[in-house]
């Protein structure tokens, strides 16, 4: 028997519907696309739509590094620090190179709000390591020259 009933209480609490719960990641992803990161309002909105508490949603959102809880630059550069990229003499060199070039440390955003630099684990591109991702675009077989190229193009796009 389905005894599910919405639990409304003057002292709070909620019963979670598994079907709705399973939509959470997709919902968060869509919400993140609006501003590049999850605003507090976005978390509350997702919670409301899915019949969960904002705490539930925040708990999940903050678990995944691909969901951001703070504003980021227009381009988020994610340098792979997975094992293949590391072995290919990539990870540190690539990250250092970008960092120096943009004048920001890992986790920071350039003053003009253009670039955010972070590292991620394997981008599933080990065969073409070292690799990095800028927003949704993957870049492979990186070298300083290629990186210069990419950054210049991105800067020119504005």
């Amino acid at each position, binding site marked *: 028997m389905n005894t599910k009933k919405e*639990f409304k*209480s*003057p002292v709070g*609490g909620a019963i979670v519907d598994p079907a709705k719960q399973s939509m959470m990641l997709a919902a968060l992803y869509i919400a993140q696309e609006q501003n590049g990161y999850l605003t507090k309002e976005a978390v509350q909105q997702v919670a409301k739509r899915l019949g969960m508490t904002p*705490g539930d949603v925040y708990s999940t959102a903050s*678990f995944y590094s691909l969901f951001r809880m703070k504003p980021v630059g227009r381009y988020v550069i994610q340098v792979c620090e997975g094992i293949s990229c590391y072995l290919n003499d990539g990870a540190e060199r690539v990250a250092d190179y970008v960092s120096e070039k943009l004048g920001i440390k890992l986790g920071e955003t350039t003053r003009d709000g253009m670039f955010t630099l972070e590292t991620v684990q394997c981008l599933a591109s080990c065969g073409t390591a070292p690799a990095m991702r800028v927003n949704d675009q993957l870049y492979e077989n990186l070298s300083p020259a290629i990186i210069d190229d990419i950054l210049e193009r991105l800067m020119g796009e504005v």
Partner: protein
Amino acid sequence: MPNLIIDDLPIEVPAGTKVIEAAEQLGIIIPRFCYHKALGSVGACRMCAVKFLQGPFKGVQMSCLIDAQDGMVVSTTDEEAVAFRKFIIELLMLNHPHDCPVCDEGGQCLLQDMTVAGGHSLRRYLGRKRTYRDQNLGVFIAHEMNRCIHCYRCSRFYQEFAGYRDLGPTQIANRVYFGRFEDGQLESPFSGNLVDLCPTGVYTDKPARFQGRRWDFERLPSLCIHCSLGCNTIANARYRAVVRVEARFNDAVNGFFICDRGRFGFPYTNQPERPRQARIDGNESSLEDAVAGAGRKLADIAHRAGPNAIACLGSRRSSLETQGLLNHLCQLMQWAEPDYFLDPLLKKKVKSAISQLDSRVAVSLRQVETADFILAVGVDPLGEAPMLALAMRQAQRKEATVAVIDPRPVPLPFSFEHLAVPTWEMNGCLKLLMEEAMRKEDEKSAARDRMAAEEGWLRNNPASAEIRRQIAQLAALFQASRNPVLICGTDIVPEATPAVVGAWARSLLEEKGKCGLFYVLPDANAFGAGLLGAANDHAFLETVGAIERGEVRALIAVESDPFERFPDRSRLEQALAKLELLLVLDYVPSPMVQQAHIFLPTSTLFETGSTFINQEGRIQIAQPVYHGGTPLSQMNGGGHPPRVYAGGLPGGEPKPAWQLLIDLAGALSLAIETGAVENPLSLVASAHPLLAGLKNTSSLLDGVRCLPDVADAEPVPADMDPAVGPGTENELQLLFVDSIFGAEELSQYADVIRQVEGEPCLYMHTQDAERLGLVEGDRVLLTLDAGAIEARVCPSQSMAPGTLVLPRRRKLEWQKAKSFSTRVTPDRIEKLK
């Protein structure tokens, strides 16, 4: 049953027992952080490592994760295991701020104990520590996340055990954070248990912050008297004030936990407004003079107007000692027996409920957790007996079906089937459900047709189709259940309900061989009041009439404040003003104390220690925790106490109420049985056959039940239908109800409780709200017989149509209603702009 050897000691345990539990049975306490008996194992901390020498597992393993199995040989002292645990404690301490001097957990901290026990006395790690931002979690709990060791006890309790979801883990890996989405009062009314559960000082008791270390406290077993369940507590006092209350484990009552009303509701004993001095006509006097004065006046009134001119009002929050002595005094003086109830109807229901209980059917709060079907009738657990909600949730977590027949928008932290029928339909609804559940298969469809034709009330109920569907489904589940428990309230139910539920419990017992019966009573010692109270239907309502008629000229109110629950405030005030003598004994600054001609200060349960009977019929005792007196913080501006006392404890005048009653008897030149002075329980023990066990007080700390083997149950009244039937189409029944915070008498003297009680709401069915043109949040003026009150509208889908629900908040002046239950026409509800 697996046989194993732990540290050379053989033991046999039931299958499914974890090794950590098996060791505990041998008296070997394996270090642990995340494992907790009530919460189970998760393997988060790795602290419980032991070495498996023989059997299906080998090497160092977590004893909380592995079931005891035949042939296991386990060592807790093996070098490798000890080294492992030492390593773990060092690891857990890497990020710990090590701020014990400013941490309230210090001195009662599992992490401290393990650090010391693990021999980790030198910090080798000199790097930076992880830090977090703390949150404001409201008035009850202070938050210091830096101290967290990530055992997950808090979120497991908060979310899984208790069913609230506004606190939990966030972030990942090294950054895992336990908190809320944003700052704010924790929503769970069981949040205080985080303080007891957290093995370090992340959550500490906020009102008790920085008030002392555990060893500074006078610390003894006590009881909670903020509802009828009688949860076991430990009270901590220091500098003549109760500082904090913790849960005390009792396997038959509250288990490991208590609710926030019980934990934070104690400050009535410390409050500066507490009347500590005897008074005659508003002037302070010595206790002796006041008692003597009262004796003279009483003797005079009795002499002039006869013993019937004196009435006594006892209290359901008084100890058994006080209730017993008051009864005894009345008998000796040939005064009428004391009233313990304002409303004759409530008295009938409580007495009927008590008469249904016997050792075959009565179940404890913990046994409710084991039920596979729970039917609760006319009870709002969170409002009337908060820990019951937690017990019901545990049953529901084990797949029990829970059904509640109640007109209110009953909030429970789990999913359940709510049969939201108005009070006058509750008995009918219960009958339908039970008959359907007890019926043999072949009778069913015929009976259902009959039911459709007969039950007129269902036709009037717009939700009847839904309710009928629910009943059919529930009946099937009920029939299949092996261990059902019936729970019954006594507050809003019609007169017959306790007896009806009792009768069903007995038939189910016959049918299934097992059925539990559990009542919720009004107040901590309602059971005592019901047992000792008069057999007649007399209640204080009639005494008020007698005062108005001039028949009763003196009233003795013992720890009783009728202003709390008497529904007509001005009538009560006028009646009391007519009295020649109003003698009040109490420990809270109630309006009665203000009106008293003679006032005698009594001591609280923390000062006296006393005996109470909970709703299950379990006699339990609280021990005296401290000696009373005005808290030091309220003297000398909180500075150093005077070095020389001029005799007596400052503010230490109050005496136990029963003691004052003995003194009063003395002043009336009556001799109370010798022995009563040393042991007032001896008098109580002879007052009722079920209380004979009281003579042996040594067994009372864990509680003993005073129940007959077979109940001499009051029969179901012939007229099962309640007096308040369906009124005219438009009328709404107005129910005054309890709520977790703000409606219970003693706890509302506490500042922190007042801060969380929230704004009073007028609950009504969404459909009624629509009819009245009201929406959520509207403010309305509700005109009652003696004036109007203002409240916020809270429409709800999950309550009975035609019913208005209003919590009895002190702020609300609901006493303008003039009667215990009332109906209002829609024109009495006016929307405010």
